[in-house]
């Protein structure tokens, strides 16, 4: 069974369709990269996946639960990481984890806290308030909170923004480890080398519509047409420039 099923997802703001009949699926253990130019509809798609705003049309199912009709059950299995970490100003690092454990009803969460704090190098900051943390540390805390309830689905919006090189390496390791443990991961990023390194499949979105979907090798092959040696970046540029050319000729 697919962990994430998106079928003909459409999100409209008034008459403007930010996402149009967008479909893809992610299996447990799979990492899917959502890439596209600025304003393509990536964040809108991820927010719809996380149940932050309801789709105008189409369906989003997480572990078999509809995000609109069975929102609570679907969200129990999900962790969403927005691009901008917005923490509670008046809770310490430790208390953020305690609060998250309460929200997701995590049984016996205390033994889980120290390994997470170690993983994200926050152990010596456990009594610090968000105002005492750098942006990168806030991002790490946000991710640590998301991992606490061992979610089956992880949704990242630009996960590496604000992290230092070591933080980026640890983040990549964390995502890979959780995917290997069976989590379905969707991540959006402009860093195509990261997508190439981490993702099994890629879906490219432009002007709210899906313009390419498949494994990275499939996409490269499709673009290279047997020539070989094409990077994901070249494939992406080739795919996303086509509609622009089409527009300029009409």
């Amino acid at each position, binding site marked *: 069974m697919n962990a994430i099923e998106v079928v003909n997802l459409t999100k409209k703001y008034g008459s403007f369709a930010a996402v149009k009949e967008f479909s893809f699926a992610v299996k447990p253990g799979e990492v899917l990269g959502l890439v596209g130019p600025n304003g393509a509809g990536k964040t809108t798609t991820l927010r719809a996946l996380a*149940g932050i*705003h309801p789709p105008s049309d189409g369906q989003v199912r997480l572990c078999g639960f509809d995000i609109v009709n069975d929102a609570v059950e679907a969200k129990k299995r999900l*962790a969403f990481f*927005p691009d901008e970490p*917005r923490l*509670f100003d008046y809770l310490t690092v430790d208390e953020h984890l305690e609060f998250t454990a*309460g*929200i997701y*009803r995590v049984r016996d969460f205390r033994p889980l806290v120290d390994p997470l704090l170690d993983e994200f190098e926050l152990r010596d900051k456990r009594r610090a308030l968000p*105002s005492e943390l750098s942006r990168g540390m806030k991002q790490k805390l946000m991710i640590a909170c998301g991992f606490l309830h061992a979610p089956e689905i992880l949704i990242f919006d630009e996960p590496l923004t604000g992290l230092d090189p070591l933080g980026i390496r640890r983040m990549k390791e964390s995502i890979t480890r959780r995917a290997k443990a069976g989590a379905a991961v969707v991540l959006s990023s402009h860093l195509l080398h990261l997508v190439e390194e981490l993702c099994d499949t890629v879906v490219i979105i432009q002007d709210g519509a899906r313009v390419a979907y498949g494994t990275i090798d499939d996409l490269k092959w499709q673009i290279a047409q047997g020539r070989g040696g094409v990077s994901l970046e070249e494939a992406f540029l080739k795919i996303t420039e086509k509609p622009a050319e089409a527009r300029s000729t009409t």
Partner: protein
Amino acid sequence: MIGAFWFVTTRSFKNRLLQRLRRLRSPRYALSMLAGLAYLWFVAFRRMTMSSSHVSVGALPVSDIGVDILSVIAFGAMLLVWAFPDSGGGLVFSEAEIQFLFPAPVSRRELLIYKIFRQQPPILISALMMTAFGFRHSMFIGLWMAFMVMSIYFTMVSLGRARLKLMHIGFVARLAVVVVLALGTGMLIASDLHNPFANKPEPQSNAQLEALLRGAGSLFHSPFVRAMLFIPRFFATAVFPKDAATLALACVGLLAVGVAFFQLAARLNVSFEEASVHVSQKHQRVRATIWDRRAGRVIILRRARLPVHLTERSGPVLAIVWKNVTAMLRTSLAWMILVVVVFSAFAVDAAILHGSNLHMGVVAISLMFCALFPFIGSNMLRQDLRLDLPRIEILKSYPITGERLVLAEIAGPTITVALVEVFLLSGTAILTHLADSSDAMTRWVSPEFVVIALLVAIPICAIELLIHNAVAIILPGWALQAPDETRGFAVFGQRLLILGGNLIVLVVALVPAVIVFAPTFFLAHRYFQDSPVFLVLGTVPAITVLFVELWIAIHLLGTQFDQIDVAGEIGQAMS
């Protein structure tokens, strides 16, 4: 370069104005703008037209005296800025201005010109507002010129202090000179003080008052004082001109003085860039702190925490209550302690005044405070959706329905207000019983009364909190204003509408409870007057109505919360 400065100033002003005007297409913003303008009309313009038709100043030389006094104030301000301790020469620039202009090939002189350009839109608006609110004689141009030249002067003084520091003339020396000058001028004016007022009877007529004012005015016209006030008088005359000719003369004078100040500032050639970065950062920090304080986000007791921990059985509702109560301990506990201390002071007063008439006065004040606290408390404790709105993305990704989330968000402040109310009511009851037992108030403030009052206070406080949270849910753009969006007619109108709406909703919410209360209390009074259950039977039905209303409101607001479009108004407000 000046073309570029003109472009950025006018285009920014135009775009800001257009953005505000475009927002008026939304009925809620149009309504708030109308409310703001209506208030302005009633408070400023209408009063102005009424005062001009009914009140005449006649021949009194009020304008002359106004000019004299304002000249002295302007002189004082111009002198005082030299005594400011800062000597870095830093000028306030925005982060974008620092990033774009400081590394650009722009000379210091041009940076100063830019600074003057960028000061114009707020100066224009201030001058317009002040003209509307009463300084009509300046015909706007006088106020604008006065503000503009004064701002150039302040810039020059800021750089002047930095230049003096380079010449090893520090704060103490500057302060000493300013004090000597201020004292000298004051003494010169005071030495003439006996002349106009000596042996003068109290003015009985307009003529006598006129003579007195003319005498007072002569204080400022001795040769030395006239010389000291020569430049300040330009500012004062521009603000309080006698006629159009005086205004024109003052404006020309100010223009000449402004050019001179600018030339001086440019010639000082102080390296103000680094200091400006520090000053600008400090300015931003101060603004952020003021904003945080206003929003109730400033942490006072960093290490305060609840003595209980969450478990897996707690669930999302309790987790949110725990979070909000923890936040309250850190941000508002000090205020709560203040309330308790003030009340305790009342109690001590009452104990000291035991037996006197003042005792019952203190009790009456305590009772009034108890009645008001549910309303005050809901404004003091903002640790609910009002503060969580910027984190709405995360809130909406939690496995909890909107209804339960709204319930959880208002539960923390409600419980806290209820606990303080228990303390206040119990204290008041004890105070009352310390008084003369024959007093009617003593009979009323019984233990049953305390319980019933608390039962009434809890839903009323919850309703108040719900109304505040409803604004955050239904009108998130109004609740989530950025620090630089806190001024203007529309924002002022929003506040008026929220205040008015709050009152109306509260009254409407209380009406059904009052309708139920009247007959049930009458019946309880008739059949159970001497029974201890009288108060319970009389009030519980009304309290039940309030709780039912609360339940319906929480359900409706929860549904509304689920439908909030994060990308819409909230997204715009947060970006």
